[in-house]
C-alpha cells in the first residue's frame, strides 16, 4: 500500500503531463519549474543576485567578462574551444538557472576531491575540465584571463551562499531509476518527436549565419567521450529538467532515460585520455554502467571510431 500509492501518484502526474501537451493548459503555462522532493533543511535555498547588481569598476568588468565568456564561449575564448558548444548550452540562463547546474551551486563546493582525476581540484581546475571535455578543447592556464574571468563571475554569483553546502537547485536533479532499462529505439522515437525540431534530424545541431544556434548532440562538434554529459544519468537529469528549451519537465522519467541513451549511443570526439586501447581506457576512466564508451550498441563499438575533423565555424 505505502509503496503502491506513490507509484499511482506518479502515474497520475505522468498522465497530467501528457494531457498538457495539447491543447495548451493555460495554468500549466504559468507554472514554475517542477517542484523537487528535497528537504529544505538539507539543501538550503539560494537565489543569485540580479545582474543589475554587478558593480562598476574593474571587479565588475571582470564579472561581466566572465559572463560573456560563459554565454559566447566560442567567440570569447576561441583558443580553448574545440567544438560548437558554449558553456550556456548546458548551464541555462548564463549559469544562473536552478536545476541547470548553476555556477552558484558549484562555486562553494570547491576545492573538492574528485574521483575523475584522483586528487583535490580547485574550482579553476574544475573549469579546466569543462574546456578539455565538454568543450573538446584545451585547458586554459589557471592564471589565464579566461579562467580568472569565469571564477570571478562564479564568485560574484555565489555571494552570500553558504560555503560547502549543497544548495537546492545545484547540479541537475537526479532522475529516479527507470522502470525499464533505457532503450535506444524508444529514445529515438522521443528524439524524433521532441528534439529533432531544434537539434536537427541528424542531431548535428542547426546553424544560422554560419554559427551554431542549436548545439550538436554528437559528432565532431559536440562534447567528447570524457564529458560528464556522455554518462546516462547526467544526460537524463539535464534533459528531464531543461529540455525542450523552455519546456523542462515535459518528458517522463522513462523518456528522459531513453533519449539520453539514444544521444549517448552516438559517436563523438575521442576522450583526450585515450591510451590507444579502448577497453583499457574504459577500465581506467569509464568503469560505470552509466557510460557506453567501449560498449557495443546496435552493432557499433562506441569510442572505436570517434568523430574527427571538427567542422568548427568560420
Amino acid at each position: 500500500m505505502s509503496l503502491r500509492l506513490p507509484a499511482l501518484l506518479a502515474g497520475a502526474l505522468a498522465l497530467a503531463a501528457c494531457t498538457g501537451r495539447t491543447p495548451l493548459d493555460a495554468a500549466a503555462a504559468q507554472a514554475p519549474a517542477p517542484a523537487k522532493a528535497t528537504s529544505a533543511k538539507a539543501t538550503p535555498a539560494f537565489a543569485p543576485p540580479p545582474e543589475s547588481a554587478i558593480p562598476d569598476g574593474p571587479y565588475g568588468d571582470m564579472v561581466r567578462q566572465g559572463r560573456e565568456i560563459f554565454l559566447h564561449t566560442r567567440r570569447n575564448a576561441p583558443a580553448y574551444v574545440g567544438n560548437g558548444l558554449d558553456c550556456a548550452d548546458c548551464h541555462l540562463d548564463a549559469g544562473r538557472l536552478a536545476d541547470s547546474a548553476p555556477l552558484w551551486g558549484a562555486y562553494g563546493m570547491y576545492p573538492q576531491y574528485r574521483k575523475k582525476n584522483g586528487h583535490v581540484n580547485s574550482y579553476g581546475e574544475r573549469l579546466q575540465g569543462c574546456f578539455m571535455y565538454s568543450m573538446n578543447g584545451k585547458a586554459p592556464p589557471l592564471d589565464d584571463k579566461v579562467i580568472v574571468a569565469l571564477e570571478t563571475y562564479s564568485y560574484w554569483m555565489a555571494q552570500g551562499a553558504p560555503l560547502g553546502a549543497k544548495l537546492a537547485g545545484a547540479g541537475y536533479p537526479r532522475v529516479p531509476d527507470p522502470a525499464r532499462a533505457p532503450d535506444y529505439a524508444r529514445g529515438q522515437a522521443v528524439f524524433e518527436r521532441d528534439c529533432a525540431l531544434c537539434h536537427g534530424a541528424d542531431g548535428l545541431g542547426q546553424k544560422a549565419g554560419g554559427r551554431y544556434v542549436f548545439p550538436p548532440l554528437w559528432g565532431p562538434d559536440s562534447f567528447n567521450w570524457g564529458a560528464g554529459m556522455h554518462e546516462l544519468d547526467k544526460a537524463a537529469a539535464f534533459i528531464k529538467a531543461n529540455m525542450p528549451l523552455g519546456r523542462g519537465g515535459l518528458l517522463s522519467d522513462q523518456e528522459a532515460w531513453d533519449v539520453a541513451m539514444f544521444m549517448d549511443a552516438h559517436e563523438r570526439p575521442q576522450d583526450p585520455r585515450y591510451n590507444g586501447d579502448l577497453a583499457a581506457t574504459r577500465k581506467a576512466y569509464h568503469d560505470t554502467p552509466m557510460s557506453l564508451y567501449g560498449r557495443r550498441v546496435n552493432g557499433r563499438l562506441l569510442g572505436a571510431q570517434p568523430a574527427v575533423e571538427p567542422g568548427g565555424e568560420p
Partner: protein
Amino acid sequence: MHVLGTVLVLAWPWLVHAADAPALVREGNGRGAPACQSCHGADGGGQPAAGFPRLAGLAAGYLEKQLTDYAAGTREHPVMQPIARALGATERTAVATYYSRLPVPPPPSGPVPADDGVGATLATRGRWSQRVPACEQCHGPGGIGVGANFPPLAGQPAAYLEAQLQAWQQGRRRNDPLQLMQHLSRALSAQDVSAVAHWFAAQRPQGNTP
C-alpha cells in the same frame, strides 16, 4: 525519346508553378485569392506601417506551412484564412517557393531600441524566472531565423510581431511545434510584447539560411 518524355512529364507541374507563381502574386488566382503583392508588396517586403509581414527570403517550408495552417484554422486570421483556402495545395507550394527565392529587401531604417531595455533583454537573454528562453536561442542571433521552423524576426514590422505574440497568447495562433510559443508568450506582459517586437523590428534581416 522516352527519357525526354519522362523528363517533360515530371517537370511539367514544376514549370507550370514556376510560371504561375508570379501571376498569383501579381494578379491572384481568380478563384478568391487576390494578388499577394497588394499587401505583401511587389518585392515581398511587406508593409511595415500596416503590419503586413515581409515574405521575401523566408524559408519555403515555413511559408507553405503557414498557408496550410491558415486553411486548417490553426492559425486564425480574417484575411489570410479565406485566401489560403482559395489556394490549391500546389498553388501554396508555388507561392511559398517563389517568395523564398526573392532577395531580402533592405528594411526601412528607424531608431534602434536601447541595448539594455526590456526588449533587448528578452531577445538576447530571455526571462528564465518565468521559463522564457531568449528569442535568439531559437530564432538565431539578431532574429535572423533558423531553418524552416524558426522564422526570421529581424526587420519584420513591429505591429506584425506584436500581433503574433498576442495571437499566441490568446490561442488564435496555435500552429507552433511543441507549443513553444504558446507557452512562453503567456509569461509576457503587454509592455514586454511591445518592447521585444520593436527590438526585432529594428534588427537587420539576412537572407534566410537553407
